Every structure is written in C-alpha cells, then in structure tokens.
C-alpha cells in the first residue's frame, strides 16, 4: 500500500481534485495514521501479553478485574490503558542539572527511530508503505538511531546510573548489530536481493521453502539473529542498560511520565520490528506455511503479524526465565561466539550455494 | 639460603624496624626483600624475634642482589597482581598503569590503596616464600573438639600470667587484663600453638557505673573449639584500649560499634568512626549516664506523644 498507490486511488476517486497537491499530502498522512493506530493497539496488546504471560509463569493472575467500573476490566483487559493514561498524566520532571534540550530530544529520537522502521515492513503482497529496494538495509540502518537516543538520554540526565546505562547500551547495540548483520547477509546471499518483498517471494511455496529450512546453516543464522535481536531491544538476558537491580533503571532513571512512556513503548515497537525482520528473512514473511492455504492478501496480514507475535511471545518467555548477563560476558558472547559462527555461516552458505548451482 | 643473604635480611629487618623502610624497599632482590618484609611483619606481630644486627654491614644492598628482571607475560594473574602492587608501592605507578589487563590493573590499584590505608598486607613479591596462614583444618575440629573442656578461662589465665606477668588484674573467674599489653597478649593468644584463638566471636562494651567502662572479648578457637572471655576495664575519663583489629579483622567493626556506643577509644584503629549513629551525634548512648538530646539538627526530640497525655 504505497503512497503512490493511495495517491492514484484518490485521483481516481476524486477526479475533480485530480493532480491537486492536497491529495498527495492526504496520501502521505493516511498510512501514517494507520501506522500510528496499529502501534497503539499493538502496544496495548503486547503490554497486556507481557503482564499476563509473566504472571502465569510466576503462578499469579496478573491484572484482574470483575467489572468495567474502576477495575481494570474483565481479566484486566484495560490495565494497559490505565497504565498508559497513568504515564501520560503523570508529572513530567526534568532534573534541574540535566542538559535540557538533549533530555527532551532523546525520547522523540528513539520513538522516531522505531516508528520509521515499520514503513519498510511488508504485511502482504501490496500492503507495504514503502517497498524500497534496500528495505532490509534501511531497517538495520534506521534501527541504529536508537543508539544515539540512548546515549543522549544517558548523558543528558546528568546521573551516574543513567550514564552507565547509556554507555552500556551503546556498546551493546553497536556490537550486536554485527552478528545480526552477518546472519542477514546469509539471507541476502540466498535471495540475492535487499528488497523485503523479493526475499519473501524467494520463500514462496510452503513451509519447507522458507529460508530457515533452506540449508543446514540457516537455523544457526536464525538463532544468532534472534539472540542479537534480543540484545538490540535490551530485553533480558541482555537488559544491562536498564538492569533494575544494578543500575536502578539505567538510562531511564531520570525520566518520568510521557517521556518514560516513549522509551517504554519504543522498546516494544522495536521488538515487533525486529521480529518482523526475522519473519521476513527466515520465516517466509506474510506467506502461509502451507502452499495454497489461506494465501489471500487479507490472510497475509494475519500470517505476518501472527508469526511476528509468536517471536515476540518467545522474547517475553525468555525474559521471565533467565538471569542477566554481565557486561564482559555479553561482549564475549558477541565477539567470540556469534561473530565467528556468523562468518563461518557465510562461508558455508556460499559454498553450499555454489555447489547447489 | 646463603650466609650473605641472611646477613642482608637481618640488616634490612633492623633498618625497617627502626623506621627506615626505604632501605628495605631499595633492595632489588625480591626474595630478600620479601623475606625481610615478612620478618618485619612477624616481629611487629610478635611472632618472631628481632634478629641481631649483623656486624659487618659493608655489603651494600645494591651490590649483592642481582637486578630483578620480571617478564610480565610469564606470570600468572595472582603473581602479576602481587608484582604490580609491589611496584606501585615502591613508587613506580607507571608500571601499574602500563598493565594491559584492566581487571588486574584495577585490582592492583585497589590493593595499593588498601595497603596504604593499612587494611591489607603488602603481598610478597611473586615466587617469594609465603608467610604461613592459619587456615583451619576441618578434620581437626571434629577430632579434638569433643573430649576437652571448652571453657578454658582458668588455664589461659595461668598461661597469660606466666607469659605476661602483671597484666592479670584480679582473680575472679574471668580473665581481667590491664589495657597496657593487650595487643601483645592478643596476638600471642592467636598464634600460641596450644590455643589458636583465630576467631573473635563477640566484642562489646559495658558501662559498669562508678567511672568504669569495660571492653569484653569473646574469643573462640575454630581449631580446638574452646573459648575464653577477656575483660579490660578502663576509666570513663580516659577510655583508651589498644585496638586488635589487625589481629582479628572483624574487631574493626566491633570496635567501631563500641566506640560509637560507649566512647571507648581504640588506639591504633585505622578508621575509628561512628558506625551506626550519624557522624555528628553527640554523646555515648549506651553509657548509663547518657542524657537524650533536646533537639537534633533543629528537630525537637518528642518527649510526649501527640494526643496522648
């Protein structure tokens, strides 16, 4: 659903305004609002899922309510709404010693980074806001914006814990982009394209054509990518930047209210973006697992979101199982385990491709 | 060990004990230096006797010892740490900073700070003979513990009387000591082969009224599983007792607590501050004549509850 497509559609629907620049603006705004709505709904959904999954794992019920009055709705459905309202109406505190402009800029920057990443994610054959020919590269690149935001947040807070968190996150995210990139290179090798749609079309024809089952090296590449994704989203066991038992809250120590909500939400949006990339690159994107089964365009949205949500669920599941790594172990894992294996993978896949012809 | 080396050590030990530690540190042979230092520590603790000063002191320390060449790469981490600490203490901080292993560097720095503060002993240079440590043998605990009487106050009283005449004050059940030689007695109690009181179970102060404060020590031997209680009384006007925190490290905090509550000053304690109360608290709360303050930092200390009287 590119902007051009909507623009053409509007031109056809409203012939009297044909060629008007207003239509172009509308065509640009429509996907924006659609995206914003999607993120909002997704945010509520995933926060609710996190609350409930963690609670069930920990033998408790999580948010519960009996009615719709001041309770959090049936089974606590409204809890994320309440949380969101609470955060947005909370007093917004900027420390007097903070670097004010940077302090204000950081949450916006991180949110923009996450938000803009979604536009290159395909939800169906034609349902993509911008089908770039370098889509996968674009997402990786724009994702790095988060690093700057996190460092800004850590530095401008003028707080030692925040500084620690910022430095940790910078080191962590930049390091883990390398194994993530290495495992995506393997995918690009196979699909011989950087475009998301072309990678997906390479995998058409059922589950066994997915890249993850393409050759014996691919599951390893997938696991490396998934774990690197965990590290890039600062999720446990890689939540060192905000490890609550060490650094109080890391780079968000001084943030409150709506600004904190931006950081909070962007973590979850980032989870979705990374999961979608993993789905696109390894799990057949919006394609049905079975050939000619529910493979219509409207179902394609379901498959895409379903697969991405499954990966998000695994992220939540891991979070509530394992302890946290230490800084040097984190780096050890990245540089001494993932990168050698990733390089070996590229080598292996190249030979495999050549041999297969 | 050669004759000349022994002489050199004796000379260095004597110099060190007379306060000239630079002479000791200037010795380049690390074996000799470490041995001399270990000896100095022992003499200070009282576990070894001071050697006589050798007569012929013309062998200069610089000439006799071969220059120390240490290849850092061949050392294990512990040895490297010890080496760096020694280097740093001798003023060669560049050697410490040049170390590439970050962890070792930080540890070495921490250690140097500690040694300078006195909370840690200077490690011997690598490959030097280690001073024997009194590690408890868990097998010994079981075998010797059961049969003998665990409370050996009377026996130890007699032993102290023989070893340090005049320090036992009166002849009631407990061991009442005068404060003068307490440090020597304590280090002897810890090192004496038949006693080995390696654990200070409890240290407390008590106000006995009539201008007397008492510091009580419950000592326990993990090796032989016996215990004694030592009491040292001082007057309230001049409450000074030698500190034993160098002998049992836990005495550090115990003595700080007793100082906090009773105002007993422990001479030789490296860091005698209040521990539980704020630094600016006035008075010694557990003395029987303590009067509560009227205000603290301008806040009234409530005497009567609101809505009560």
């Amino acid at each position, binding site marked *: 659903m590119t902007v051009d497509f909507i623009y053409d559609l509007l031109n056809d629907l409203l012939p009297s305004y044909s060629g008007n620049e207003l239509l172009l603006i509308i065509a640009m705004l429509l996907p924006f609002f659609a995206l914003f709505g999607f993120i909002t709904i997704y945010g509520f959904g995933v926060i609710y899922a996190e609350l409930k999954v963690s609670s069930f794992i920990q033998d408790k019920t999580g948010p519960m309510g009996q009615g719709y009055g001041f309770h959090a709705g049936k089974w606590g459905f409204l809890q994320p709404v309440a949380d969101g309202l609470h955060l947005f109406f909370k007093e917004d505190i900027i420390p007097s010693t903070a670097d004010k402009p940077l302090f204000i800029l950081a949450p916006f920057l991180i949110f923009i980074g996450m938000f803009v990443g979604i536009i290159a994610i395909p939800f169906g054959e034609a349902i993509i806001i911008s089908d770039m020919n370098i889509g996968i590269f674009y997402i990786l690149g724009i994702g790095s914006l988060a690093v700057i935001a996190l460092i800004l947040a850590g530095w401008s807070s003028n707080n030692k814990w925040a500084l620690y968190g910022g430095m940790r996150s910078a080191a962590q995210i930049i390091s883990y982009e390398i194994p993530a990139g290495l495992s995506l290179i393997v995918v690009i090798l196979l699909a011989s394209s950087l475009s998301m749609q072309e990678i997906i079309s390479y995998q058409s024809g059922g589950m066994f054509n997915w890249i993850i089952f393409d050759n014996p090296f691919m599951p390893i590449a997938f696991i490396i990518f998934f774990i690197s994704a965990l590290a890039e989203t600062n999720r446990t066991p890689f939540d060192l930047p905000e490890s609550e038992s*060490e650094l109080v809250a890391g780079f968000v120590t001084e943030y409150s209210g709506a600004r904190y909500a931006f950081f909070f939400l962007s973590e979850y949006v980032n989870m979705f973006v990374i999961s979608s990339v993993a789905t696109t690159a390894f799990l057949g994107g919006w394609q049905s697992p079975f050939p000619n089964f529910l493979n219509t365009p409207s179902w394609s949205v379901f498959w895409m979101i379903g697969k991405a949500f499954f990966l998000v669920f695994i992220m939540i599941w891991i979070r*509530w199982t394992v*302890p946290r790594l230490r800084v040097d172990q984190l780096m050890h894992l990245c540089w001494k385990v993932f990168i050698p294996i990733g390089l070996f993978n590229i080598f292996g896949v190249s030979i495999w491709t050549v041999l297969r012809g | 060990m050669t004759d000349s080396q022994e002489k050199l050590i004796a000379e260095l030990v004597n110099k060190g004990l007379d306060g000239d530690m630079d002479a000791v540190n200037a010795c380049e042979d690390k074996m000799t230096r470490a041995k001399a230092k270990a000896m100095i520590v022992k003499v200070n603790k009282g576990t070894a006797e001071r050697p006589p000063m050798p007569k012929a002191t013309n062998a200069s320390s610089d000439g006799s010892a071969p220059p120390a060449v240490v290849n850092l790469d061949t050392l294990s981490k512990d040895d490297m740490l010890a080496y760096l600490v020694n280097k740093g203490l001798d003023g060669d901080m560049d050697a410490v900073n040049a170390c590439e292993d970050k962890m070792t560097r930080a*540890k070495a720095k921490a250690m140097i700070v500690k040694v300078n503060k006195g909370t840690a002993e200077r490690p011997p240079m690598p490959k030097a003979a280690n001073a024997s440590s009194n590690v408890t043998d868990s097998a010994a605990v079981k075998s010797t513990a059961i049969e003998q009487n665990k409370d050996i106050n009377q026996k130890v009283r007699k032993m102290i009387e023989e070893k340090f005449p005049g320090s036992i004050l009166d002849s009631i059940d407990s061991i009442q000591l005068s404060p003068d030689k307490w440090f020597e007695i304590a280090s002897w109690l810890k090192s004496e082969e038949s006693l080995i009181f390696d654990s200070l179970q409890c240290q407390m102060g*008590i106000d006995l009224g009539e201008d007397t404060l008492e510091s009580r020590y419950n000592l326990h031997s*993990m090796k032989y599983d016996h215990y004694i209680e030592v009491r040292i009384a001082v007057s309230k006007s001049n409450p000074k007792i030698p500190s034993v925190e160098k002998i049992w490290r836990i005495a550090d905090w115990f003595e700080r607590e007793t100082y906090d509550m009773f105002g007993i000053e422990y001479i030789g304690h490296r860091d005698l501050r209040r521990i539980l109360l704020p630094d600016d608290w006035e008075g010694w*709360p557990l003395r029987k004549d303590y009067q509560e303050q009227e205000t603290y930092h301008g806040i009234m200390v409530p005497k009567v509850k609101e809505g009560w009287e």
Partner: protein
Amino acid sequence: MGVIRGEEMVLNIGPQHPATHGVLRLQVRTDGEVVSQITPYMGYLHRCFEKHCENVTYEQVIPFTDRCDYLSSMSMNFGYVVAMEKLMNIKVNDRVEHIRIVMAELQRIASHLLCTGVFGLDLGAFTPFLWALRDRERILDLFELTCGARLLYNYMWVGGLSHDIPVGFVESTFEFLDYFEPKVDELENILAHNKILVERSADIGVMPKDVAISYGVTGPNLRASGVNWDLRKNDPYSIYDRFEFDIPIGQGIKGTVGDCWDRFYVRILEIRESVKIVRQALASMPKDGDVHQSLPKKIRPPKGAIYARTETPRGDLGYYIESDGSPIPYRLKMRSPAFTALSVIDEIGAGWLLSDVLAILGSLDIVLGEIDR
C-alpha cells in the same frame, strides 16, 4: 599501544537502591565498571535495640528480638531464650524442645528460600523469586496457624512457648513438606544449574577460609568457604544432637571453593537438610507435655553474665546478657551474623565489576534490620 585510563568515579549505591536489601549505602570507587573500593555506611535502620533492652523486662525483650532479623524471627527468639535459659538454669521439657526445633528449621527454610530467590533477583531472574516467595507463604501460613502472626511471632518464651501447637499442625506440616520437596528441585533446576547464573556467580567474590574466619563470618557463608562449622553439630544446643542431618559445605563444584555460587548452593542444600530435621522432629515429638510447665513465675536471673550462641539461617547469633539480679537486663548485646558478613564486602568485593559486587552482596544474605539493630 597506548593505555586507556579512566577517571575514578565515586558512586553511591543506596540508601535507596533495589539491590541493597534494605537501607544500606555502599560508597564505591569505580574505574569504569570496575570497583576498586567499597565503603559500607549503615545505621539507617538503627532502632536502639540494645538501649531499649536496658529499659524493658526480660520477657519484653522478645518482641524486640523479632524485629532485628525480621526474616528469621523464630530463630532470633530461639537464640534469646536459649541464652536466658542457660543463665537461669531452666530445663524445658521435650515437647517444647521439639516444637522449637520444628519452628526454627521451618524458619530456616523460609529464610533460605527468600535468600536464594533474592539472589536470583539480583542477577536479573525474576520468576524464581516469586516461586520462592510462594512456598515461603505456605510456611508463614503454618506459623500463622501456630501463633497468629505471620512475620513477628513472639512465640518462644523463656522457659516454654507462648502456646501449644494447634491440633492438625503436624499433619499440615507433613503435607507442606511433601508439597515442598519437588519445588526445591524446581528452584534448583531453574537457578543453580542455569548456565548464565553459573557464569555470573562461579569464581566471583571468592572468600578464602582464613579471610572468612578472621572476619568472623559464620553460617552458610563460612560453610561455603569450606569450613565445616555449624553450631547445631559442633556445639549442639537444645536437642539438635538427637537428629540425623548433614552439614553441607562448599565444594567449588562450578568454580572455586567459597565463591558466590557456593554460598548460594549451600543454602539450597541446607533447605533439604532442614526438611529432614523437621520430619524427624515431627515424628519424634512427644504427644503430651505442658508448654508452660517450666515457665518461671518472674524472670529474675541471678547476677552474672552469659554469652550464648545459636545457629540462625544467617550464622552464629550470639546474645551476651549481663544481669544484675533485677528483672531488667543490665546490658544486652546481640552479636548479629549479618553484621560480620557485611564487614567482609570490601575484602572480597573490591576488584570486581559493578554487577559482581551486587551479586556478592546478594550472596552474603544480609538483613539490614539485624546489622543496624
């Protein structure tokens, strides 16, 4: 190659910090993330326990001992009454002894559960903490069944107990133990053998034997350093000599003897030993016997002093009681195990990374109420 050096930074961990287990302030000197010096400041929770005790009668001290180590109040009561009974030369009957041991060992399980759970929490694992708390609640239910209180019991009295155990207590305790034993395996499975936790705690903060003894460290921390020392075996008070149990000591399975992992694992093993003791004590408990039988009419101990030690979940708890023959203690000193355990933090914590320092602090299992008294 040039040397990169950072400026040293002074960082205050606490008094309000999630990992300090209460209100403790650790002033650490850091070079990057490497900690070179730790200075603990405590006293934020100082409630003048010893001064209070000089103003209340002997029986009124017991509620105050509860509040010193609020995670093992039964053991604190136990230590005090053992000391008082030694001082007054009271012999209590077997039923009282058995009930006391059941309570003290259940309390040990509860306290160790919390400690192991919180250790996981310090390392970032949230779930095992809640599982541990879930089982701890069951033990608190048993205590509530017995004496009406869930945390601060005032249950053991000098010369007896405040009241007998209720009908059905033995059965519900057996039921709890049957439920509980598989849960320990689960806890061990998710924590002790988890590779990440092992990496985070093995070889970290090694406390050698001689350091531990010199610093007066006792209890599980000392045993983790490889010293076979437990007052229940070495100097049996009450009737501990009648029961069969082992003293787990640190063996350095995953690293060096005396590291964080050993300190943590010794506690899990001790939970199992305590279960054994509870089972034996319940099975051999005499059916009759008045828990108020040897309750003194008035607690007025003879002139003299006593220092008595007991083994609490955190180590040797010593009460030094000086009596002048009046019903009010002349001087009462509590030698608390967590106080000595905390004093060793600079010795074993300096030189490690910031995350390790908090792991070491968690593995020492301190309770600030007891340190500050």
